């Protein structure tokens, strides 16, 4: 190649290379800026739009905000996607420019003038090694000292032995739990209220020792539960399902919480029978939160201030009467018996988070009964009734421990537990006692009148049954032999409670019978009047009693003598 041509080529190539370098720098800078911009508007991390959306759901009629959200949403998305396209194009441009630069370099190299220095010869001396050795030794030493420094600096506060904080524990103690009335039929849901005295000196129609009386806004057959000074009931109809929180001492409605806005909640409500309603399931509390289930399959957890903690829909139940199993709490778990025609589930949730701890899919026939908790040989069991069986499960794992097929018909009563025996009684089936350790039937008796709603209760070796037909019976819990029976005027839907050493049971007309347990005969101590129909089981406190009638909620207790 001629010298001039080569020079010209070199000049051109040099200019091209320079322009390319400038171009690459500009593209790179634009790309970096674009990248930073893109990170900022990333739809994933954007918080403005979600917060505006929440604002709008609180204020649904704000059309200005609505338009603003729509515009901002479009803007953000457009910016994000075009930014991405630009980045991709930028990358390709840089690559192309790099290629051009490479060709330019190769051309420059090929056309360069030969500049080989031929004047050289052998005259090498061995260089001194000392400097090199010192440098290497210093580097090596530096590395070790650095490593030691890192080890010592990070060692502080990194010792596993120093961290011995246990897993967070719940504040509610077992004593506090048992001193309250957290579930349907008491702390273990077995109808037994230990450590308190039944208050018996009252009469509501005459106002004698009536502390307060309020009308519950929405109707429900669920029973009241009480924790310290708070009382919770549920109510519901086709329009809304709610939890009400009252001051247990004054009857003041503290808050009401609507179980609405739960995703998965059916738009079309399931059909329920009139005498079951939407709020037949009694709520339960763990001392920090209140849980409630409704006939829609909605399960909500609300804190004591009325704020929702979690909620879920368990699936709309296919239930001919309506879902009515009550909830059961233990100090850290929520147990739900969730039976319908399609599936029979026993579920355990973490009270704080609503996380499902275990789920037991059973093969059984739907029941309207509620689970109870029993403790045998140091292990907690959950005992449930279905229309064909009585079953025991381990509380911690959900493992099925035993099952006895002794039930039939439509079972709505729940079990009770006394003297190491699980006692059950339901109409069209039997009265029976089961040993929950071996899972064996101890005795069965189907020759007596049996209840179809009211659950049995036991004191010592006596099991008491109150039927819908108005018959009170006492059965020997050891043998199953009928000790006595007594006919009363009206039937019972309400379940009897053993409070201290007295039994209280209220009939459909609203007459409360206070009975002294006796193996020989029906020993009525006194009767008190409620004045309206009662289905719910009352909640006994210390010298207090909270009763839910069909319409009103009453609190009876010793009135302070006003001078």
């Amino acid at each position, binding site marked *: 190649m001629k010298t001039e041509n080569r020079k010209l080529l070199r000049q051109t190539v040099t200019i091209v290379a320079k322009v390319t370098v400038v171009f690459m720098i500009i593209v790179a800078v634009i790309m970096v800026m674009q990248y930073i911009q893109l990170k900022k508007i990333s739809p994933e991390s954007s918080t403005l739009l979600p917060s505006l959306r929440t604002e709008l759901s609180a204020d649904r009629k704000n059309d200005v905000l609505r338009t603003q959200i729509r515009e901002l949403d479009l803007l953000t998305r457009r910016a994000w996607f075009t930014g991405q396209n630009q980045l991709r194009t930028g990358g390709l441009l840089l690559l192309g420019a790099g290629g051009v630069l490479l060709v330019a370099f190769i051309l420059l190299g090929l056309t360069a003038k030969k500049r*080989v220095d*031929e004047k050289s010869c052998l005259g090498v001396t*061995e260089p001194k090694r000392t400097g090199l050795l010192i440098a290497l030794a210093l580097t090596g030493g530096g590395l070790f000292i650095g490593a030691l420094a890192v*080890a010592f600096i990070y060692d502080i506060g990194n010792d596993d032995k120093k961290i011995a904080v246990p897993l967070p524990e719940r504040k509610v103690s077992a004593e506090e739990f048992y001193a309250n009335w957290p579930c349907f039929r008491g702390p273990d849901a077995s109808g037994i209220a230990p450590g308190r005295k039944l208050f018996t000196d009252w009469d509501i129609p005459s106002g004698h020792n009536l502390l307060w009386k309020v009308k519950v806004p929405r109707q429900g057959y669920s029973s009241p539960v009480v924790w310290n000074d708070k009382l919770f009931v549920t109510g519901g109809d086709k329009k809304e399902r709610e939890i009400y929180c009252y001051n247990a001492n004054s009857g003041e409605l503290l808050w009401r919480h609507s179980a609405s806005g739960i995703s998965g909640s059916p738009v079309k409500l399931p059909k329920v029978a009139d005498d079951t309603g939407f709020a037949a399931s009694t709520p339960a509390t763990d001392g920090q939160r209140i849980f409630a289930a409704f006939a829609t399959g909605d399960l909500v957890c609300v804190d004591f201030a009325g704020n929702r903690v979690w909620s879920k829909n368990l699936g709309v139940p296919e239930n001919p009467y309506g879902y009515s199993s009550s909830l059961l709490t233990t100090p850290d778990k929520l147990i739900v018996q969730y039976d319908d025609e399609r599936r029979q589930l026993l579920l355990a949730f973490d009270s704080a988070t609503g996380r499902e701890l275990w789920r037991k899919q059973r093969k059984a026939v739907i029941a309207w009964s509620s689970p109870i908790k029993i403790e045998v040989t140091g292990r907690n069991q959950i005992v449930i009734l279905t229309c064909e069986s009585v079953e025991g499960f381990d509380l911690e794992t959900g493992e099925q421990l035993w099952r006895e097929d002794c039930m039939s018909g439509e079972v709505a009563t729940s079990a009770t537990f006394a003297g190491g025996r699980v006692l059950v009684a339901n109409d069209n089936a039997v009265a029976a006692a089961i040993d929950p350790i071996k899972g064996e039937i101890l005795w069965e008796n189907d020759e007596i009148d049996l209840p179809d709603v009211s659950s049995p209760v036991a004191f010592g070796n006596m099991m008491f049954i109150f039927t819908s037909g108005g018959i009170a019976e006492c059965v020997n819990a050891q043998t199953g032999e009928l000790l006595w029976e007594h006919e009363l005027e009206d039937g019972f839907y309400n379940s009897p409670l053993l409070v201290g050493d007295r039994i209280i049971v209220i009939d459909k007309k609203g007459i409360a019978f206070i009975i002294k347990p006796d193996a020989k005969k029906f020993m009525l101590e006194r009767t008190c009047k409620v004045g309206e129909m009662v289905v719910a089981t009352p909640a006994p406190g210390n010298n207090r009693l909270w009763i839910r009638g069909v319409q009103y909620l009453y609190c009876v207790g010793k009135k302070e003598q006003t001078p």
Partner: protein
Amino acid sequence: MTKLFIITVLFFSGMLLIATEFRFPKPEFTSGYESPILQQPLPTAEWMPYLALGLLLLVMILTGYAVYKWRSRRIQTVLIVFSLAFFGFFREGCVCAIGSIQNVTAALADAGFALSLPVLGFFVLPLLTALFFGRLFCGAACPMGALQELVLVRPLRVPKTLDRVLRLIPPLYLGAAVLFAFCGLGFIICSWDPFVSLFRLSGSVFMLGAGGFIVILSIFIARPYCRYICPYGVLLKAAAFFSARQVSITPDECIKCRLCEQACPSDVIIPPRPRKYSEPGFAAVHRIQWLLAITPGIIAIGIIAGYLLAKPATALDSQITLLRNIKAGNVENEAVSAFLATGTPVKDLAIRVQQRKYKLKIGWMLFGAWSGLIIAGSLIAASRRRRNQDFIPDRMNCVCCSRCYAYCPRELKINKNGTTGNSPEPQASRLQPRPGNAVGGC
């Protein structure tokens, strides 16, 4: 066996039963609607890695011919561009020989780790080649090397002392990578690879920036990554030490003109043994004896440093950190809540953590010993005296770039006479002769 099978079937059918329980059962549509089928796009063809392995072998064979037989840098450049395009931009740099170190280590540590044939091939083939023919892989087949090779325009020399100090990095990096992969702490070579984000044209700003920096640096300094970072280079170096063939600068006899010494951008050409030593021979021998004597001491210090580092380094282990967070009651932590949600007993985790801690401790001590060995080795190597008579490339550090051929007057002469090769018009020196060397009188 049958029993096991039945149990498995029962287990799975049980799972199916649970799986079919949903809050909202799928509706039975009356309009004849049928749900679409979920698209499942497949990954790149399964044969692609095998093709890549085949091409790797082919490129290395051709490079061998280009370097030893044809003595042609032009053909080599074509191979370099191909490697950059195929292994780099098309295959997006994964899996590469450098990263495969970790796969092999992980497979050694954990019998359940799947090590596919292409990955093993990428690890072994370059080493086998180096064992017989030197570092041909670096010469043209490695896309990282190729990128650096192509952009080298104005090579500057790295001061000898700095060069020797920086050369400590690759073996230490290799040790760390093996330690991390063995203990299941992740693949650090891959996480900190500066080139792969360039090949993909996407990645974090930091890694893209690091890649850009190294590319710009390699305009002036020959192959900075290969010489001062690449952990695979350490293995290749060791293999190349035994190589049967190595680059011979001159096609026939060395006239000791020193031209090649300036041509080598990596500065690996060893000048012949000087006539006169600047220090008496026994002094050098004495020093090596001393260094050999203190080597066990240096290794012991390394082991102690490793032992001490092992404890704070447990913070890098996700399982150990998880257990710590669980013990501290740090429920807010996502990893903790995710772990608790699985329902695995904390006791199981604690047992696993105990085993890992033991493994980590041993690993760190071995790493410390390795570091001590490297430092002692480099000290001894720096004290060795050369024995060669001619100008030859250091067989361990030479990356077979074929640049020196064009500088040898003998090659030029033979070339002009047309007796060998198809080497082009000699490339002009882009190197200014170093004044100090050039002036050395005869």
